[in-house]
């Protein structure tokens, strides 16, 4: 799932979260858990799954009770309580507060990909390797699997992903004489100019408050803005020449008033999508369904295409959003908890239910190749097979993108620097330097070695 637009509350709570992360960091100390990676025997697993057990699962996914019910039917001895304690930052704060308090923490939690390192930093996640997770590593798109695992272990099971594509209003584009979706960013800029002069619409919106989307676009461009060695060393390079190139491109579109710069997921943004102020949206695989709920009146006028490419003939995308299920290391029932995290995201019936009922875009390769999933024709997109398109895009996401253990700060700092520059139509490249400086200073303050 994408990160919440930050409100004042979110800012305040993220400060509290960081305080807690650090408290955990200093008390956590070493991360040498290799003793725990002995495989658990099948006999132990069978016995644990037949012992009456109560699990608590904190997640914000609507109606996830249905998938959990499949698990309970398969393992009648295990009783799972699903609790929705909030979404995004609220959720993480509650998890950390409960971990800090020592008890009351759940067994299984929902985590977005970019926040997994902030939990492994404090040794809060259980390594799922001994519980059979290694056996299913090949069943998920490889870049998603790379994000849930490291050399030290497997920390979560992928649930959904958000490979990015281009949703656009084919009617507005056609009015401006653009009949094919722009294949390259150069074409995209040309199309933006035609759309603006012919119809007055922006070709899309570059939000001033959405680090996750911009990170996805950087990801696509091959930018590797940061990395973490799993211990105390990070490298930060958000103002690399490649990143500057991406920002220079958007700077040009912004300066020529060819894209909107409204904050996304709020009123002006929804209006822009439903009234045609924006002729498109560079969004993720969950975007098509989301759009249907908010811009109903424009049904049938949309089309989907891959993102424009930086080089002609390339096929590369980035990811925006998606989430996983992880087991907290404090659980008293590791076998049952690991079984739950794996079952709901691996059992074919359960993954199909996620994809077709909750419309989570699947991370499971089997489902991405399944005709019953990819074959559905979506009326909102004029009968296009949108799932098939995004399943293809999912293959093209670059595999070695990683996250820092303090993405909360990185994202809030983005909003203060690059985001503000986008909103003010100011100097984006200069803002990248500010962003870099803020992250480096923060990392050093927290005791990380910055390379």
């Amino acid at each position, binding site marked *: *799932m*994408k*990160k*919440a*637009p930050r409100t004042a*509350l979110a800012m305040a709570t993220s400060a*509290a979260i960081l305080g807690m992360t650090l408290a955990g960091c200093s008390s956590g100390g070493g991360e040498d858990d290799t003793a725990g990676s002995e495989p658990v025997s099948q006999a132990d697993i069978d016995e644990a799954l037949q012992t009456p057990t109560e699990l608590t699962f*904190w997640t*914000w*996914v*609507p109606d996830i009770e249905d998938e959990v019910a499949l698990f309970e039917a398969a393992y009648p001895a295990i009783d799972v309580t699903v*609790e*929705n*304690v*909030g*979404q*995004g930052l*609220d959720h993480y704060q*509650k998890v950390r*507060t409960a971990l*800090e*308090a*020592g*008890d*009351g923490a759940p067994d299984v939690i929902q985590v977005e990909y970019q926040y997994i390192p902030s939990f492994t930093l404090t040794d809060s996640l259980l390594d799922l390797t001994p519980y059979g997770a290694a056996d299913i590593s090949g069943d998920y798109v490889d870049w998603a699997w790379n994000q849930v695992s490291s050399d030290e272990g497997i920390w979560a099971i992928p*649930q*959904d992903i*958000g490979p990015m594509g281009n949703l656009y209003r084919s009617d507005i584009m056609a009015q401006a004489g653009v009949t094919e979706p722009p294949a390259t960013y150069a074409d995209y800029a040309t199309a933006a100019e035609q759309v603006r002069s012919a119809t007055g619409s922006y070709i899309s919106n570059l939000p001033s408050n959405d680090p996750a989307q911009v990170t996805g676009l950087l990801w696509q461009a091959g930018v590797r803005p940061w990395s973490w060695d799993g211990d105390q060393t990070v490298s930060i390079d958000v103002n690399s020449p490649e990143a500057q190139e991406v920002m220079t491109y958007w700077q040009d579109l912004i300066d020529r008033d060819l894209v909107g710069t409204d904050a*996304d*997921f*709020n*009123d002006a943004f*929804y*209006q822009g*999508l*439903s*009234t045609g102020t924006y002729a498109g949206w560079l*969004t993720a695989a*969950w*975007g098509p369904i*989301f759009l249907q*709920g*908010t*811009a*109903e*009146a424009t049904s049938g006028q949309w089309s989907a295409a891959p993102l424009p490419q930086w080089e002609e003939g390339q096929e590369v995308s980035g990811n925006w*959003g*998606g*989430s996983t299920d992880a087991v907290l290391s404090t659980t008293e029932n590791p076998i049952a908890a690991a079984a739950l995290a794996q079952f709901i995201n691996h059992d074919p019936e359960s993954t199909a239910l996620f994809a077709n009922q*909750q*419309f*989570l*875009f699947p991370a499971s390769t089997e489902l991405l190749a399944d005709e019953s999933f990819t074959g559905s024709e979506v009326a909102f997109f004029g009968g296009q097979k949108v799932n098939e398109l995004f399943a293809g895009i999912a293959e093209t996401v670059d595999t070695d993108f990683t996250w820092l253990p303090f993405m909360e700060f990185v994202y809030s700092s983005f909003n203060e620097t690059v985001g503000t520059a986008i909103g003010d139509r100011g100097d984006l490249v200069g803002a990248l330097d500010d962003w870099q400086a803020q992250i480096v200073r923060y990392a050093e303050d927290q005791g990380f070695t910055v390379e």
Partner: protein
Amino acid sequence: MTTTLLPPVERPTAPPARRRRNPRDRRSTPLTVLLWLCAAYFLLPLVWLVIASTKDNADLFSTFGLWFGERFSLWDNLVSVFTNRDGIYGRWALNTVFYALASGGGAALLSTMAGYAFAKYRFPGSRALFSVTLGAIMIPLTALALPTYLLFNTFGITDTPWAVILPSLVSPFGVYLMRVYAADAVPDSLIEAARVDGAGEFRIFWQVSLRLLGPGVVTVFLFALVATWNNYFLPLIMLNRSELYPLTVGLAQQQLASAQGGGGSQALFSTVITGSLVSIVPLVVAFLFLQRYWQSGLAAGSVKQ
């Protein structure tokens, strides 16, 4: 909730001696305009809320905010408010009423007793204790939420109604208000007379003073009621089970589910907006009927008699 406080109704009390002068002449146009602007500033969001509640998602984002959309969907929205997730909204509403009444009642009782004691008894440390109470007014409940959570967790009462009610029982402002109110409303001579008649201190408090303190008690009750009704951060921190949530947290959760995008998001905008409207109706009604208590409470202590 101060936003719903309407400007006091103007009752021209033209004294007989000035009868020749038409009271209308004393109207000040700039002031009238200013007050109208203030009224508009406070009322427009409410008007928006009422109008937006009649729109479905499509109209919400494609029509002008302060006028009705193409379809009138208030009934559909109300149905979806009360049926979403098996009607959990009703549960949240009951929780809110329960938390607010329990906290309001408890806070009113405790504040009255404490304020009365501060006003009428001299005891060692009373000045210091009262200073601490005054200082506590400056500390927002929000700042104490996390420490309170850790404390409550030690006793194992997080994720229970107690976790929301107990902290709300403490109202430093209520104590201050009741001290000021009790100092004026209960004459010392009356207490003396009761003592002479042989009444114990408890009997004096319950049977004599409490009657005189009535309006003040109601005011504190209302303040605490509204504070708990609108409290968001404390229940957000304390509660994990949806079935214990009050409306504030529940609605925020629904709103986040629709405002975040991402997989599994539902477009619940009109449901959340209509739910918000329904959630403030009881408060608005309470204000209209209980205005005089608010005014008397706010005016208490403003004039030295």
